[in-house]
């Protein structure tokens, strides 16, 4: 966590430095440009989200870009997640929109589906390293056959576990199937169960990304494309099997996590940091948050991919991440494309990997290998999937997600499996259907 804070602080400092030069853009700098082949000029305003790319990366990137295009200034600004949608919406409608923006992958379709909001980048895929795009992300950036979003980076969940506890409980190797996983939980409980605060698996009731994995693993999905529209498929036997496995995990582990909240309420990494939790399903960098409490956890923690019901495989995982896009009314599309081109190049993609995320436009994941948690994530990302690329999907995640309500209703016993899935299916259809 500290690392990320430092990065953010560095990025912000850099922002201030570059913003200071922003005023002196335009024709005077254009006049001084000479060697650049495209004769680009003006200012490129780049909005990336806080925590996305480390400052060392953007620092070098912006410098290289300005050197390669002497007529262009980069105005790089880090944005906050809170309220980003309103900020993006208004910025795109404002007189001076940013030229390169980062959009969350589940939000991209909402922007791309509207005429004249984002620039169609279908013709530029090759210059953005199109052959190596991460499929799950590329899907989310495509609408109606056209490309509007260039994959930026992704991350997916894995099981983060205490190697020392596993060893003491006699679990010799990380589970590679659901049965082994349940088995490991049993052994951990036998060994540590006498401690009332111990939890073999921290599993809040609304970790719906984990549920997605289980549903996909059982061959189901949350929704199916039906022409341009989507139809919810939560009431299928496959989806029900996924939900059942979720309940099995919660019941066998006897987790004390709230059944009516997700992994952020309370922040699960902090709970893990207290040292009484043997496993949690999370993202690699959650370990850094936990290590702020107890630095010794870094050495004691390992990760394994979310197991599958089929032994030896791992379950498909949800790819969370972002795309890069160019607003349609950007004043500097040519320079913006050059900027994305440079960011998509192998050099910066490998830096992204080294920073601990799955790069969007490069299949070279060696940067992630040095970190044990990162390499597990990288391997699992090959089996990464995206949520339906429906323009209305944002409505599902913006709050009151029916999948979350379904989980709570079933786990607390308020509804039966059939009733919970039927209700959620209807609610989801109301949001994304038709």
């Amino acid at each position, binding site marked *: 966590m500290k690392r990320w*804070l430092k990065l953010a602080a560095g990025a912000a400092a850099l922002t201030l430095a570059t913003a200071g030069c922003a005023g002196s853009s335009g024709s005077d700098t254009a006049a001084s440009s000479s060697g650049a082949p495209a004769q680009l000029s003006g200012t490129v305003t780049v909005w990336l989200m806080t925590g996305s790319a480390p400052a060392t990366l953007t620092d070098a990137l912006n410098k290289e870009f300005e050197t390669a295009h002497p007529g262009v200034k980069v105005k790089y600004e880090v944005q906050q997640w809170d309220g980003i949608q*309103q*900020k993006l919406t208004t910025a795109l409608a404002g007189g001076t929109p940013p030229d390169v923006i980062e959009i969350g992958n589940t939000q991209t379709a909402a922007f791309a589906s509207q005429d004249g909001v984002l620039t169609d980048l279908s013709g530029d895929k090759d210059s953005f390293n199109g052959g190596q795009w991460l499929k799950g992300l590329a899907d989310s950036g495509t609408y109606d056959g056209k490309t509007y979003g260039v994959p930026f980076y992704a991350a997916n969940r894995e099981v983060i576990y205490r190697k020392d506890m596993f060893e003491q409980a006699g679990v010799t190797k990380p589970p590679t199937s659901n049965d082994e996983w349940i088995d490991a939980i049993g052994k951990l409980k036998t060994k540590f169960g006498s401690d009332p605060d111990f939890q073999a698996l921290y599993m809040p009731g609304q970790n719906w990304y984990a549920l997605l994995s289980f549903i996909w693993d059982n061959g189901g999905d949350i929704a199916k494309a039906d022409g341009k529209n989507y139809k919810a498929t939560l009431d299928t036997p496959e989806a029900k099997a996924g939900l059942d496995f979720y309940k099995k995990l919660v019941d066998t582990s006897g987790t004390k996590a709230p059944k009516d909240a997700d992994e952020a309420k*309370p*922040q699960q990494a902090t709970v893990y*940091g207290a040292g009484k939790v043997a496993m949690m399903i999370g993202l690699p960098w959650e370990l850094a948050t936990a290590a702020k*409490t107890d630095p010794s956890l870094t050495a004691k923690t390992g990760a394994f991919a979310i197991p599958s019901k089929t032994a030896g495989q791992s379950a498909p995982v949800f790819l969370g991440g972002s795309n890069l896009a160019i607003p349609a009314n950007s004043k500097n599309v040519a320079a913006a494309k050059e900027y994305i081109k440079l960011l998509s190049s192998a050099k910066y993609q490998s830096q992204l990997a080294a920073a601990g995320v799955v790069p969007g436009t490069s299949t070279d994941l060696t940067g992630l290998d040095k970190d044990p948690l990162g390499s597990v994530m990288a391997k699992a990302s090959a089996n990464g999937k995206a949520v339906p690329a429906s323009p209305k999907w944002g409505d599902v995640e913006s709050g009151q997600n029916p999948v979350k309500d379904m989980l709570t209703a079933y786990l607390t016993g308020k509804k039966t499996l059939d009733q919970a899935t039927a209700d959620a299916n209807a609610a989801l259809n109301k949001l994304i259907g038709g």
Partner: protein
Amino acid sequence: MRKSLPQRIALSVVGVVVALLILFPTYWMFVTSLRTPGEILSPKYDLIPTSFSFGNFATALGKDNFPTYLMNSLIVTVGSVLCALVAGTLAAIPLSRLRFTGRKGFLVLVMVAQLAPVSALFIPLFLLMRDAGLLNTLPSLLLIYFATTLPFTVWMLYGFVNGIPYELEEAAMIDGCSQTGAFRRVTLPLLGPGLVTTSVFSFITAWNEYLFALVFIQDKPKETLPVWLASFRTAFATDWGGVMAASVIYAVPALIFFLLVQRKLVSGATAGAVKG
């Protein structure tokens, strides 16, 4: 109404207990800001902290360009409070003391203007500021905060002026004061508590506003403190200890503002007693 000593002690005890109850959530915020992450969610019984760490405060103050944000926030907030008080007082006088056509229409307008949820006004206000070329400037925020606190200010001051007997002004005028002079020397001092209450209200409203502060301002050096506060949350993790430390720091200017004007609240009271 002299009270006996036991009565005073009993009242003081009640007062302190009430104060403690009101204080508790703020106390909890403060205590959390002194905790390490592991202590925030602890199974132990931790009503009273046993160890203190000031790391969160160091993180918070070292983050970004705190002084710049503080300055911007102060400009926007104090500016809008002053504007609202001046315009509000000017409006409250004729509303309360004079009869003229359109008076009730104005009062209704003031009321109706407050009915709408601000989140719905956000798009029209954005378009307005865009067309006026005020986006990305501090005055755009100043104007919004001024306007959103104004109806309340007008109305409260209208109520307070109404509560001050006109006879006092008349007496002053008989003594040879002009009408303006009578208002300034008699009514305005009595208005002290009302002005303090409304200014504290306006200050806190403007100080805490996030949505417009986020959307209207695009350049980092022009951003205000609420945006700074939001920057402790990233997509990956929230540094809650940092958020709490930042929130403690954040609440300090409002507290200072209150302590500065609080004396006025008391002097207004004594002024009232002298004149009553």
